[in-house]
């Protein structure tokens, strides 16, 4: 970590990602239909934007503005799903509306605030990227470790599976799998993505384990009677972790990109949930809307900057793990 921080690219990438993660983490505080704090009808509510109390259901910062004694608004006054049916905004032209002082980044065709959707979309996109790679690394470590350590027939069979998974255009599998598993939750998407991305990790781990196996410390551990599981877990995997981390970091970026592609194909995170891919897809649908540039520009920028930071971090991890050797 220290090495990363000293790395020129790594530092900025870490800072950028920290910013993105904080945005995602505090999405509810940054943009919500309910305020940070409000006193209404003699009751004071703290952080209703996070706790979503039932008593305030159906209310919004707009409706509370008239009824509340006092109110602290969230920086962005809107939630990600709040359409003009709730905001009740009445303008001469139908939405999408251009950026102005009410909607900093404009609104989409339903009057939903792009800034709010972007902030909440960060949560979905980053979560998809991270969870996908956690699953992929988990599966990859397990299968790669077993294949490398066990050798023999197990290795042959697992290597075959690896080859199948690695060579086949997995977009087809993803389409088929997600058509089957489609639900409102993120998990099917994350699991399907993870299951198609573990192969690189597994290949790496297997190669690493094969080369480490004959090294002194492993031989010593074996001579001391350590069980295979212990050797894999305590010696081989920690040593293979460096290169795996590099692959995993890049994988987060490509998982975020893949999510946008799947959204475009209509099998990503189910709308109306805001994900960056969904926002871009919406922008593609409304391209012929002359003037609605804000729909495409801001999500595009968010994706590009995030993936760029992730990739820069990957490069930095690679540099630092190379220099560590």
């Amino acid at each position, binding site marked *: 970590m220290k090495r990363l921080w000293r790395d020129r690219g790594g530092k900025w990438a870490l800072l950028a990602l920290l910013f993105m993660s904080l945005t995602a983490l505090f999405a509810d505080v940054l943009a919500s239909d309910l305020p940070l704090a409000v006193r209404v009808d003699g009751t004071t509510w703290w952080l209703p934007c996070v706790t979503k109390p039932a008593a305030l259901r159906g209310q919004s910062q707009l409706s509370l503005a008239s009824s509340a004694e006092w109110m602290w608004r969230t920086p962005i006054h809107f939630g990600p799903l709040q359409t003009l049916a709730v905001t009740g905004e009445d303008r001469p032209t139908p939405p999408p509306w251009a950026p102005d002082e009410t909607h900093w980044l404009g609104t989409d065709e339903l009057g939903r605030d792009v800034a709010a959707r972007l902030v909440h979309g960060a949560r979905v996109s980053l979560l998809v990227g991270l969870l996908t790679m956690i699953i992929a690394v988990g599966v990859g470590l397990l299968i790669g470790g077993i294949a490398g350590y066990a050798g023999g027939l197990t290795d042959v069979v697992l290597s*075959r599976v690896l080859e199948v998974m690695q060579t086949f255009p997995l977009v*087809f599998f993803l*389409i088929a799998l997600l058509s089957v598993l489609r639900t409102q939750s993120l998990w099917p998407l994350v699991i399907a993505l993870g299951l198609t991305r573990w192969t690189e990790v597994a290949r790496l781990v297997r190669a690493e384990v094969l080369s480490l196996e004959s090294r002194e410390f492993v031989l010593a551990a074996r001579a001391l009677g350590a069980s295979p599981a212990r050797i894999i877990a305590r010696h081989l995997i920690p040593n293979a972790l460096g290169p795996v981390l590099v692959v995993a970091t890049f994988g987060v970026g490509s998982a975020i990109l893949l999510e946008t592609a799947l959204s475009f194909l209509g099998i990503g995170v189910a709308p109306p949930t805001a994900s960056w891919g969904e926002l871009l897809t919406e922008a593609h649908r409304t391209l012929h809307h002359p003037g609605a540039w804000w729909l495409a520009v801001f999500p595009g920028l968010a994706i590009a900057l995030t*993936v760029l930071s992730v*990739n820069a971090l990957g490069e930095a991890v690679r540099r630092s793990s190379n220099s560590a050797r």
Partner: protein
Amino acid sequence: MRRYVLRRLLLMIPTFLGITLLTFVIAQLAPGDPFQLDLEVVGPGQAVIDLQRTSKGLDAPLPLQFGRWLSRVVRFDFGRSFIDQRPVTEKLGEAAPRTALVAGLALVLGFGLAVPLGVLLATRARRWWARVLSVLLVAAWSVPTFWIAVILLMLFAGPRYFDWFPVQGLAEGGFVLPVICLTWPTLVVATRQVRSALEDALAQDYVKAARARGIPERRVVWRHALRNSLLPVVTMLGLHLPHLVGGSVVIERIFGIPGMGLLAFDAIGTRDYPTVMGVATVMALVTMLSMLLVDLAYGFIDPRIRLERSA
């Protein structure tokens, strides 16, 4: 040599079975039915749906269906599409050349440009433009392909800016924009590979030795170092091809190219199992053949590697 190729071909059989079995199971598990798509078909229609299911063998247990499918495939009979009733081979025959054209051009262009670019980046790493380029490469990698496609479409197709290319289809130069979109990621990935492989090679002792012997730098790089660093690049080329075809799903959809990606996407959507399986088979064959070719190419590039190596 012959024994090696034979062995590799035999090893393909389990791989092929694996891919097709996986596709078969996933496709069949999806809820929905190819014969229930029209909601106006009701009441007495249900009997017809059942009849059709029976006549297409869909009421048989899954293992039996897969067995039947396999026995037909070895005779190169993919059956007929459940939807438009055309032979699957005919549909594949129409779609495959289009995808092959676009993906093939992208592959050739991507790797063709990647080698000189990678060499330049590896040998001139300290120049400012090399740094810019390498950062640009990372940046280019960070943009969704379909986003690039949308921008290109807006700029270079249609009357708004430069009315150079048709919006849809492959005719009249329509392949240019999709090829650019697919070349983009290929170029980025391949350039990085060439650069890092060459950087490694240039640090090797034999390169130092060659330089010490007074061989001109240009020759050292292009003849000695590059030759050795092409090995991982060729591996990548083989592994990249299927992903290129996979990536074409989105591109084909945006540019309206009725290729393999779109065919597969639509077939999965309508539960057209024979077509899904046909595409899967072709994809499996393409990927396995490209891997075999990669392995064979090893021998030509680096004579030190005997093909018996992995035998």
